Protein backbone atom coordinates (compact mmCIF):
# COMPACT_ATOMS: atom_id res chain seq x y z
CA UNK A 1 0.00 0.00 0.00
CA UNK A 2 2.85 2.37 0.82
CA UNK A 3 4.26 1.81 -2.62
CA UNK A 4 0.95 1.78 -4.36
CA UNK A 5 0.28 5.49 -4.51
CA UNK A 6 3.60 6.52 -6.10
CA UNK A 7 3.05 3.80 -8.68
CA UNK A 8 -0.46 4.95 -9.44
CA UNK A 9 0.69 8.55 -9.57
CA UNK A 10 3.32 7.61 -12.14
CA UNK A 11 0.58 5.96 -14.20
CA UNK A 12 -1.54 9.06 -13.75
CA UNK A 13 1.28 11.21 -15.16
CA UNK A 14 1.30 9.07 -18.30
CA UNK A 15 -2.48 9.29 -18.48
CA UNK A 16 -2.33 13.06 -18.16
CA UNK A 17 0.38 13.29 -20.81
CA UNK A 18 -1.80 11.36 -23.23
CA UNK A 19 -4.74 13.53 -22.28
CA UNK A 20 -2.99 16.87 -22.69
CA UNK A 21 -1.10 16.01 -25.86
CA UNK A 22 -4.22 14.61 -27.47
CA UNK A 23 -6.15 17.80 -26.79
CA UNK A 24 -3.23 19.97 -27.84
CA UNK A 25 -3.14 18.45 -31.31
CA UNK A 26 -6.68 17.27 -31.93
CA UNK A 27 -8.39 20.56 -31.12
CA UNK A 28 -6.68 22.47 -33.95
CA UNK A 29 -6.56 19.44 -36.26
CA UNK A 30 -10.32 19.07 -35.79
CA UNK A 31 -10.75 22.61 -37.13
CA UNK A 32 -8.84 21.70 -40.27
CA UNK A 33 -10.88 18.53 -40.67
CA UNK A 34 -14.12 20.47 -40.21
CA UNK A 35 -12.93 22.92 -42.85
CA UNK A 36 -12.30 20.04 -45.23
CA UNK A 37 -15.64 18.46 -44.42
CA UNK A 38 -17.43 21.69 -45.36
CA UNK A 39 -15.27 22.18 -48.45
CA UNK A 40 -17.05 22.83 -51.72
CA UNK A 41 -14.60 20.51 -53.44
CA UNK A 42 -16.51 17.21 -53.53
CA UNK A 43 -13.34 15.09 -53.50
CA UNK A 44 -12.00 16.76 -50.38
CA UNK A 45 -15.30 16.62 -48.54
CA UNK A 46 -15.88 12.97 -49.50
CA UNK A 47 -12.41 11.86 -48.43
CA UNK A 48 -12.76 13.69 -45.14
CA UNK A 49 -16.21 12.26 -44.66
CA UNK A 50 -14.90 8.71 -45.11
CA UNK A 51 -12.11 9.40 -42.65
CA UNK A 52 -14.61 10.70 -40.10
CA UNK A 53 -16.88 7.70 -40.67
CA UNK A 54 -14.03 5.25 -40.08
CA UNK A 55 -12.87 7.06 -36.95
CA UNK A 56 -16.38 7.11 -35.54
CA UNK A 57 -17.38 3.69 -36.82
CA UNK A 58 -14.64 1.44 -35.45
CA UNK A 59 -13.40 0.86 -31.91
CA UNK A 60 -10.56 3.14 -30.85
CA UNK A 61 -8.71 0.15 -29.44
CA UNK A 62 -8.55 -1.27 -32.95
CA UNK A 63 -7.40 2.03 -34.41
CA UNK A 64 -4.55 2.12 -31.91
CA UNK A 65 -3.35 -1.31 -33.02
CA UNK A 66 -3.36 -0.15 -36.62
CA UNK A 67 -1.60 3.09 -36.00
CA UNK A 68 1.18 1.31 -34.17
CA UNK A 69 1.63 -1.82 -36.25
CA UNK A 70 0.25 -0.66 -39.59
CA UNK A 71 3.27 1.37 -40.76
CA UNK A 72 5.59 -1.59 -40.28
CA UNK A 73 3.42 -4.04 -42.17
CA UNK A 74 2.81 -1.51 -44.91
CA UNK A 75 6.17 0.23 -45.25
CA UNK A 76 8.52 -1.61 -42.96
CA UNK A 77 8.80 1.47 -40.74
CA UNK A 78 8.27 1.42 -37.02
CA UNK A 79 8.25 4.01 -34.29
CA UNK A 80 7.74 4.82 -30.67
CA UNK A 81 4.63 3.39 -28.93
CA UNK A 82 3.84 6.57 -27.05
CA UNK A 83 3.92 8.55 -30.27
CA UNK A 84 1.59 5.96 -31.74
CA UNK A 85 -0.84 6.38 -28.86
CA UNK A 86 -0.83 10.13 -29.35
CA UNK A 87 -1.31 9.83 -33.11
CA UNK A 88 -4.10 7.29 -32.63
CA UNK A 89 -5.94 9.44 -30.11
CA UNK A 90 -5.37 12.64 -32.06
CA UNK A 91 -6.75 11.37 -35.36
CA UNK A 92 -9.68 9.78 -33.56
CA UNK A 93 -10.57 12.82 -31.49
CA UNK A 94 -9.97 15.26 -34.33
CA UNK A 95 -12.76 13.49 -36.20
CA UNK A 96 -15.16 13.89 -33.28
CA UNK A 97 -14.15 17.49 -32.65
CA UNK A 98 -14.52 18.29 -36.35
CA UNK A 99 -18.14 17.19 -36.29
CA UNK A 100 -18.77 19.30 -33.19
CA UNK A 101 -17.18 22.34 -34.81
CA UNK A 102 -19.16 21.83 -37.97
CA UNK A 103 -22.42 21.60 -36.04
CA UNK A 104 -21.45 24.76 -34.16
CA UNK A 105 -20.63 26.78 -37.27
CA UNK A 106 -23.79 25.66 -39.00
CA UNK A 107 -25.89 26.61 -35.99
CA UNK A 108 -24.87 30.27 -36.20
CA UNK A 109 -27.74 32.17 -37.84
CA UNK A 110 -27.02 33.26 -41.38
CA UNK A 111 -27.97 36.76 -40.25
CA UNK A 112 -24.65 37.06 -38.45
CA UNK A 113 -22.82 36.54 -41.74
CA UNK A 114 -25.14 38.92 -43.52
CA UNK A 115 -24.82 41.68 -40.94
CA UNK A 116 -21.04 41.35 -41.14
CA UNK A 117 -21.09 41.45 -44.91
CA UNK A 118 -23.26 44.55 -45.02
CA UNK A 119 -20.97 46.26 -42.51
CA UNK A 120 -18.05 45.54 -44.84
CA UNK A 121 -16.12 43.02 -42.73
CA UNK A 122 -13.81 40.72 -44.64
CA UNK A 123 -14.66 37.01 -44.58
CA UNK A 124 -11.65 36.38 -42.36
CA UNK A 125 -12.64 39.07 -39.89
CA UNK A 126 -16.22 37.82 -39.85
CA UNK A 127 -15.05 34.29 -39.18
CA UNK A 128 -12.56 35.08 -36.43
CA UNK A 129 -14.43 37.91 -34.71
CA UNK A 130 -18.09 37.15 -35.25
CA UNK A 131 -18.54 33.44 -35.92
CA UNK A 132 -15.81 31.69 -33.92
CA UNK A 133 -16.54 33.41 -30.60
CA UNK A 134 -20.17 32.37 -30.86
CA UNK A 135 -19.29 28.85 -31.98
CA UNK A 136 -17.01 28.45 -28.97
CA UNK A 137 -19.87 29.22 -26.64
CA UNK A 138 -22.24 26.85 -28.36
CA UNK A 139 -19.92 23.86 -28.52
CA UNK A 140 -18.70 23.93 -24.94
CA UNK A 141 -21.21 21.35 -23.65
CA UNK A 142 -20.49 18.92 -26.50
CA UNK A 143 -16.74 19.44 -26.13
CA UNK A 144 -17.04 18.84 -22.40
CA UNK A 145 -18.66 15.47 -23.00
CA UNK A 146 -16.00 14.49 -25.50
CA UNK A 147 -13.14 15.53 -23.25
CA UNK A 148 -14.58 13.48 -20.40
CA UNK A 149 -14.76 10.52 -22.74
CA UNK A 150 -11.11 11.13 -23.55
CA UNK A 151 -10.14 10.91 -19.88
CA UNK A 152 -11.71 7.47 -19.78
CA UNK A 153 -10.40 6.39 -23.19
CA UNK A 154 -6.80 6.94 -22.09
CA UNK A 155 -7.22 3.54 -20.38
CA UNK A 156 -7.04 2.00 -23.85
CA UNK A 157 -3.43 3.09 -24.38
CA UNK A 158 -2.31 -0.10 -22.61
CA UNK A 159 -3.37 -2.00 -25.72
CA UNK A 160 -0.03 -1.18 -27.28
CA UNK A 161 1.96 -1.39 -24.09
CA UNK A 162 1.83 2.12 -22.67
CA UNK A 163 1.72 1.90 -18.89
CA UNK A 164 -1.00 4.40 -18.09
CA UNK A 165 -3.03 4.55 -14.90
CA UNK A 166 -5.37 1.65 -15.54
CA UNK A 167 -2.59 -0.70 -16.69
CA UNK A 168 -0.56 0.14 -13.60
CA UNK A 169 -3.59 -0.41 -11.38
CA UNK A 170 -4.39 -3.74 -12.98
CA UNK A 171 -0.83 -4.98 -12.58
CA UNK A 172 -0.72 -3.85 -8.98
CA UNK A 173 -4.04 -5.54 -8.43
CA UNK A 174 -2.73 -8.81 -9.85
CA UNK A 175 0.46 -8.57 -7.79
CA UNK A 176 -1.26 -7.73 -4.52
CA UNK A 177 -4.24 -9.99 -4.96
CA UNK A 178 -6.66 -7.19 -4.25
CA UNK A 179 -9.01 -4.86 -6.08
CA UNK A 180 -7.89 -1.87 -4.02
CA UNK A 181 -5.61 -0.48 -6.75
CA UNK A 182 -8.47 -0.62 -9.23
CA UNK A 183 -10.82 1.14 -6.82
CA UNK A 184 -8.21 3.84 -6.33
CA UNK A 185 -7.71 4.16 -10.07
CA UNK A 186 -11.47 4.55 -10.43
CA UNK A 187 -11.32 7.34 -7.91
CA UNK A 188 -8.53 9.00 -9.85
CA UNK A 189 -10.54 8.91 -13.06
CA UNK A 190 -13.51 10.25 -11.18
CA UNK A 191 -11.46 13.13 -9.82
CA UNK A 192 -9.94 13.93 -13.20
CA UNK A 193 -13.38 14.00 -14.72
CA UNK A 194 -14.63 16.11 -11.88
CA UNK A 195 -11.89 18.63 -12.58
CA UNK A 196 -12.63 18.59 -16.30
CA UNK A 197 -16.37 19.16 -15.80
CA UNK A 198 -15.65 21.87 -13.27
CA UNK A 199 -13.40 23.63 -15.76
CA UNK A 200 -15.96 23.36 -18.51
CA UNK A 201 -18.72 24.56 -16.20
CA UNK A 202 -16.64 27.54 -15.25
CA UNK A 203 -15.85 28.29 -18.86
CA UNK A 204 -19.53 28.00 -19.70
CA UNK A 205 -20.42 30.38 -16.87
CA UNK A 206 -17.74 32.77 -18.00
CA UNK A 207 -19.42 32.97 -21.38
CA UNK A 208 -22.81 33.32 -19.81
CA UNK A 209 -22.69 37.09 -20.00
CA UNK A 210 -24.57 36.85 -23.30
CA UNK A 211 -26.83 34.43 -25.04
Amino acid at each position, binding site marked *: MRNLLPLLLAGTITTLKIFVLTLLFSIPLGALVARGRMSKNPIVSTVINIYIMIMRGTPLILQLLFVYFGPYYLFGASYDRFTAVIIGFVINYAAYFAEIYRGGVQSIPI*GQWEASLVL*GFSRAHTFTHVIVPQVVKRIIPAMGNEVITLVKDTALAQTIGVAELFRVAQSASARQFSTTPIVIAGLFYFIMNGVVSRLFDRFEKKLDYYH
Partner: protein
Amino acid sequence: MSIITVENVVKSFDALGVLRGISFTLNEGEVLSIIGPSGSGKSTLLRCLTQLERIDSGRIEVCSMTMAHSTGGTIQYADAKTLKQIRLKLGLVFQNFNLFPHMSVLRNITEAQVNVLAKSKGEAVATARQLLAKMGLEEKEDAYPCHLSGGQQQRVSIARALALNPTVLCFDEPTSALDPELTIEILKVIKDLAKEKMTMIVVTHEMAFARDISDRVIFMDEGLIVEEGPPDVLFNAPAKERTQRFLSRYGQ
Protein backbone atom coordinates in the same frame (compact mmCIF):
# COMPACT_ATOMS: atom_id res chain seq x y z
CA MET B 1 -29.54 64.26 -57.41
CA SER B 2 -30.19 60.57 -57.90
CA ILE B 3 -28.33 58.38 -55.43
CA ILE B 4 -29.68 55.01 -56.42
CA THR B 5 -30.81 54.04 -59.87
CA VAL B 6 -32.40 50.65 -60.37
CA GLU B 7 -33.23 49.62 -63.91
CA ASN B 8 -35.22 46.61 -64.92
CA VAL B 9 -33.79 44.40 -62.19
CA VAL B 10 -34.68 40.72 -62.44
CA LYS B 11 -33.97 38.10 -59.81
CA SER B 12 -35.16 34.48 -59.58
CA PHE B 13 -34.70 31.76 -57.02
CA ASP B 14 -34.55 28.67 -59.19
CA ALA B 15 -37.78 28.75 -61.12
CA LEU B 16 -39.40 31.41 -58.92
CA GLY B 17 -39.25 34.90 -60.41
CA VAL B 18 -39.08 37.09 -57.32
CA LEU B 19 -38.17 40.40 -58.97
CA ARG B 20 -39.51 40.59 -62.49
CA GLY B 21 -38.23 43.92 -63.77
CA ILE B 22 -37.95 46.58 -61.10
CA SER B 23 -36.96 50.17 -61.94
CA PHE B 24 -36.89 53.20 -59.71
CA THR B 25 -34.62 56.00 -58.60
CA LEU B 26 -33.92 57.40 -55.20
CA ASN B 27 -32.90 61.02 -54.75
CA GLU B 28 -30.81 62.56 -52.06
CA GLY B 29 -32.70 63.34 -48.88
CA GLU B 30 -35.70 61.40 -50.06
CA VAL B 31 -37.58 58.85 -47.96
CA LEU B 32 -38.96 55.99 -50.01
CA SER B 33 -41.38 53.49 -48.53
CA ILE B 34 -41.95 50.12 -50.11
CA ILE B 35 -45.19 48.38 -49.24
CA GLY B 36 -46.84 45.28 -50.57
CA PRO B 37 -48.15 41.87 -49.57
CA SER B 38 -45.99 39.17 -48.10
CA GLY B 39 -43.82 37.47 -50.71
CA SER B 40 -43.99 40.34 -53.18
CA GLY B 41 -40.19 40.69 -53.21
CA LYS B 42 -39.62 43.71 -50.98
CA SER B 43 -36.93 42.10 -48.85
CA THR B 44 -35.29 40.59 -51.90
CA LEU B 45 -35.06 44.02 -53.49
CA LEU B 46 -33.30 45.45 -50.42
CA ARG B 47 -31.00 42.43 -50.33
CA CYS B 48 -30.04 42.96 -53.95
CA LEU B 49 -29.20 46.59 -53.23
CA THR B 50 -27.05 45.64 -50.24
CA GLN B 51 -25.32 42.85 -52.19
CA LEU B 52 -26.72 40.06 -50.06
CA GLU B 53 -28.19 38.64 -53.27
CA ARG B 54 -26.93 38.85 -56.85
CA ILE B 55 -29.32 40.06 -59.51
CA ASP B 56 -29.84 38.06 -62.69
CA SER B 57 -30.14 41.01 -65.04
CA GLY B 58 -30.76 44.74 -65.06
CA ARG B 59 -28.70 47.59 -63.74
CA ILE B 60 -28.00 49.04 -60.31
CA GLU B 61 -26.13 52.28 -59.81
CA VAL B 62 -25.26 53.76 -56.42
CA CYS B 63 -23.72 57.22 -55.95
CA SER B 64 -22.68 57.28 -59.61
CA MET B 65 -20.91 53.94 -59.30
CA THR B 66 -22.24 51.05 -61.34
CA MET B 67 -22.70 48.06 -59.09
CA ALA B 68 -24.01 45.67 -61.73
CA HIS B 69 -25.30 45.84 -65.27
CA SER B 70 -26.35 43.39 -67.94
CA THR B 71 -24.25 43.19 -71.05
CA GLY B 72 -25.36 40.87 -73.81
CA GLY B 73 -27.50 38.70 -71.61
CA THR B 74 -25.00 38.20 -68.79
CA ILE B 75 -24.76 40.19 -65.61
CA GLN B 76 -21.56 42.06 -64.95
CA TYR B 77 -20.68 43.07 -61.38
CA ALA B 78 -18.12 45.78 -60.59
CA ASP B 79 -14.68 44.88 -59.22
CA ALA B 80 -14.29 44.01 -55.56
CA LYS B 81 -13.01 47.45 -54.61
CA THR B 82 -15.96 49.30 -56.12
CA LEU B 83 -18.37 46.81 -54.60
CA LYS B 84 -16.88 47.45 -51.20
CA GLN B 85 -17.19 51.21 -51.69
CA ILE B 86 -20.80 50.82 -52.72
CA ARG B 87 -21.45 48.56 -49.77
CA LEU B 88 -20.34 51.32 -47.41
CA LYS B 89 -22.72 53.79 -49.02
CA LEU B 90 -25.71 51.65 -48.01
CA GLY B 91 -26.60 50.82 -44.44
CA LEU B 92 -29.10 48.07 -43.72
CA VAL B 93 -31.19 47.63 -40.61
CA PHE B 94 -32.41 44.06 -40.37
CA GLN B 95 -35.87 42.95 -39.44
CA ASN B 96 -34.49 40.81 -36.61
CA PHE B 97 -31.62 43.20 -35.81
CA ASN B 98 -28.77 40.68 -36.25
CA LEU B 99 -26.74 42.34 -33.55
CA PHE B 100 -23.57 40.51 -32.54
CA PRO B 101 -24.66 38.84 -29.31
CA HIS B 102 -21.14 38.39 -27.93
CA MET B 103 -20.21 42.05 -28.24
CA SER B 104 -21.29 44.86 -25.97
CA VAL B 105 -23.53 47.54 -27.41
CA LEU B 106 -20.54 49.85 -27.76
CA ARG B 107 -18.44 47.25 -29.54
CA ASN B 108 -21.32 46.40 -31.88
CA ILE B 109 -21.15 50.00 -33.03
CA THR B 110 -17.38 50.50 -33.06
CA GLU B 111 -16.28 47.19 -34.58
CA ALA B 112 -16.89 48.13 -38.21
CA GLN B 113 -15.66 51.70 -37.75
CA VAL B 114 -12.32 50.39 -36.54
CA ASN B 115 -11.99 47.38 -38.80
CA VAL B 116 -13.58 48.62 -41.98
CA LEU B 117 -13.17 52.39 -41.92
CA ALA B 118 -9.86 52.07 -40.06
CA LYS B 119 -10.83 54.78 -37.61
CA SER B 120 -8.97 54.99 -34.32
CA LYS B 121 -10.56 53.36 -31.34
CA GLY B 122 -11.13 56.71 -29.63
CA GLU B 123 -12.77 58.22 -32.64
CA ALA B 124 -15.01 55.18 -33.08
CA VAL B 125 -16.08 55.27 -29.46
CA ALA B 126 -16.84 58.98 -29.69
CA THR B 127 -19.06 58.43 -32.73
CA ALA B 128 -20.75 55.48 -31.06
CA ARG B 129 -21.49 57.47 -27.90
CA GLN B 130 -22.93 60.29 -29.93
CA LEU B 131 -25.24 57.90 -31.76
CA LEU B 132 -26.25 56.13 -28.56
CA ALA B 133 -27.14 59.46 -27.04
CA LYS B 134 -29.25 60.25 -30.07
CA MET B 135 -31.01 56.90 -29.63
CA GLY B 136 -31.55 57.51 -25.92
CA LEU B 137 -29.28 54.62 -25.00
CA GLU B 138 -26.44 56.43 -23.24
CA GLU B 139 -26.60 54.07 -20.29
CA LYS B 140 -26.58 50.88 -22.29
CA GLU B 141 -23.16 51.03 -23.90
CA ASP B 142 -21.78 48.20 -21.74
CA ALA B 143 -24.88 46.04 -21.94
CA TYR B 144 -25.09 42.98 -24.16
CA PRO B 145 -27.85 42.73 -26.75
CA CYS B 146 -29.62 39.93 -24.87
CA HIS B 147 -30.23 42.25 -21.98
CA LEU B 148 -32.00 44.85 -24.09
CA SER B 149 -35.65 44.99 -25.07
CA GLY B 150 -36.49 44.47 -28.72
CA GLY B 151 -36.90 48.18 -29.27
CA GLN B 152 -33.54 48.93 -27.70
CA GLN B 153 -31.89 46.25 -29.81
CA GLN B 154 -33.41 47.77 -32.90
CA ARG B 155 -32.11 51.21 -31.95
CA VAL B 156 -28.63 49.76 -31.44
CA SER B 157 -28.79 48.18 -34.86
CA ILE B 158 -29.77 51.52 -36.34
CA ALA B 159 -26.84 53.15 -34.56
CA ARG B 160 -24.56 50.40 -35.84
CA ALA B 161 -25.59 51.13 -39.41
CA LEU B 162 -25.36 54.91 -38.96
CA ALA B 163 -21.88 54.65 -37.48
CA LEU B 164 -20.48 53.91 -40.93
CA ASN B 165 -22.03 57.15 -42.13
CA PRO B 166 -23.94 55.62 -45.03
CA THR B 167 -25.47 57.74 -47.75
CA VAL B 168 -28.66 55.69 -47.71
CA LEU B 169 -30.17 53.78 -44.84
CA CYS B 170 -32.38 50.82 -45.66
CA PHE B 171 -34.89 49.31 -43.26
CA ASP B 172 -36.57 45.94 -43.69
CA GLU B 173 -39.72 46.00 -41.59
CA PRO B 174 -37.98 47.66 -38.70
CA THR B 175 -40.86 47.12 -36.30
CA SER B 176 -42.21 43.71 -37.25
CA ALA B 177 -40.35 41.93 -34.45
CA LEU B 178 -41.43 44.45 -31.84
CA ASP B 179 -44.25 44.82 -29.37
CA PRO B 180 -46.76 47.52 -30.36
CA GLU B 181 -45.55 49.94 -27.74
CA LEU B 182 -41.92 49.48 -28.71
CA THR B 183 -42.88 49.99 -32.32
CA ILE B 184 -43.68 53.54 -31.51
CA GLU B 185 -40.18 54.22 -30.20
CA ILE B 186 -38.59 53.04 -33.42
CA LEU B 187 -40.96 54.85 -35.67
CA LYS B 188 -40.07 58.00 -33.80
CA VAL B 189 -36.36 57.39 -34.37
CA ILE B 190 -36.93 56.92 -38.08
CA LYS B 191 -39.09 60.03 -38.23
CA ASP B 192 -36.30 62.00 -36.58
CA LEU B 193 -33.86 60.71 -39.18
CA ALA B 194 -36.27 61.78 -41.90
CA LYS B 195 -36.40 65.25 -40.40
CA GLU B 196 -32.60 65.36 -40.60
CA LYS B 197 -32.94 64.61 -44.30
CA MET B 198 -31.37 61.19 -44.12
CA THR B 199 -31.97 59.37 -47.40
CA MET B 200 -33.90 56.19 -46.58
CA ILE B 201 -35.68 53.21 -48.04
CA VAL B 202 -38.17 51.68 -45.65
CA VAL B 203 -39.95 48.41 -46.27
CA THR B 204 -42.91 48.43 -43.92
CA HIS B 205 -46.33 47.11 -43.11
CA GLU B 206 -47.20 50.15 -41.02
CA MET B 207 -49.34 52.07 -43.47
CA ALA B 208 -49.93 55.03 -41.20
CA PHE B 209 -46.22 55.34 -40.71
CA ALA B 210 -45.41 55.01 -44.41
CA ARG B 211 -47.89 57.74 -45.16
CA ASP B 212 -46.45 59.90 -42.44
CA ILE B 213 -42.74 59.87 -43.28
CA SER B 214 -42.45 59.07 -46.96
CA ASP B 215 -41.75 61.40 -49.81
CA ARG B 216 -42.65 58.62 -52.15
CA VAL B 217 -44.27 55.19 -51.79
CA ILE B 218 -43.81 52.14 -53.99
CA PHE B 219 -46.41 49.41 -53.93
CA MET B 220 -45.03 46.06 -55.04
CA ASP B 221 -46.83 42.86 -55.87
CA GLU B 222 -45.52 39.63 -57.33
CA GLY B 223 -42.11 41.04 -58.14
CA LEU B 224 -43.35 44.11 -59.96
CA ILE B 225 -43.90 47.73 -59.00
CA VAL B 226 -47.65 48.08 -59.33
CA GLU B 227 -47.88 51.72 -58.44
CA GLU B 228 -45.61 54.51 -57.28
CA GLY B 229 -46.30 58.00 -56.07
CA PRO B 230 -46.46 60.47 -53.22
CA PRO B 231 -48.17 59.03 -50.15
CA ASP B 232 -51.20 61.31 -50.38
CA VAL B 233 -52.02 60.09 -53.84
CA LEU B 234 -51.14 56.45 -53.31
CA PHE B 235 -52.99 56.02 -50.06
CA ASN B 236 -55.99 58.24 -50.75
CA ALA B 237 -56.53 57.70 -54.43
CA PRO B 238 -54.69 54.64 -55.65
CA ALA B 239 -54.93 54.28 -59.41
CA LYS B 240 -54.70 50.51 -59.60
CA GLU B 241 -57.35 48.07 -58.48
CA ARG B 242 -54.66 45.82 -56.87
CA THR B 243 -53.44 48.71 -54.72
CA GLN B 244 -56.96 49.53 -53.64
CA ARG B 245 -57.59 45.95 -52.67
CA PHE B 246 -54.39 45.77 -50.66
CA LEU B 247 -55.02 49.05 -48.84
CA SER B 248 -58.64 48.22 -48.08
CA ARG B 249 -57.50 45.28 -45.99
CA TYR B 250 -55.66 47.68 -43.76
CA GLY B 251 -58.59 50.03 -43.52
CA GLN B 252 -60.66 47.83 -41.20
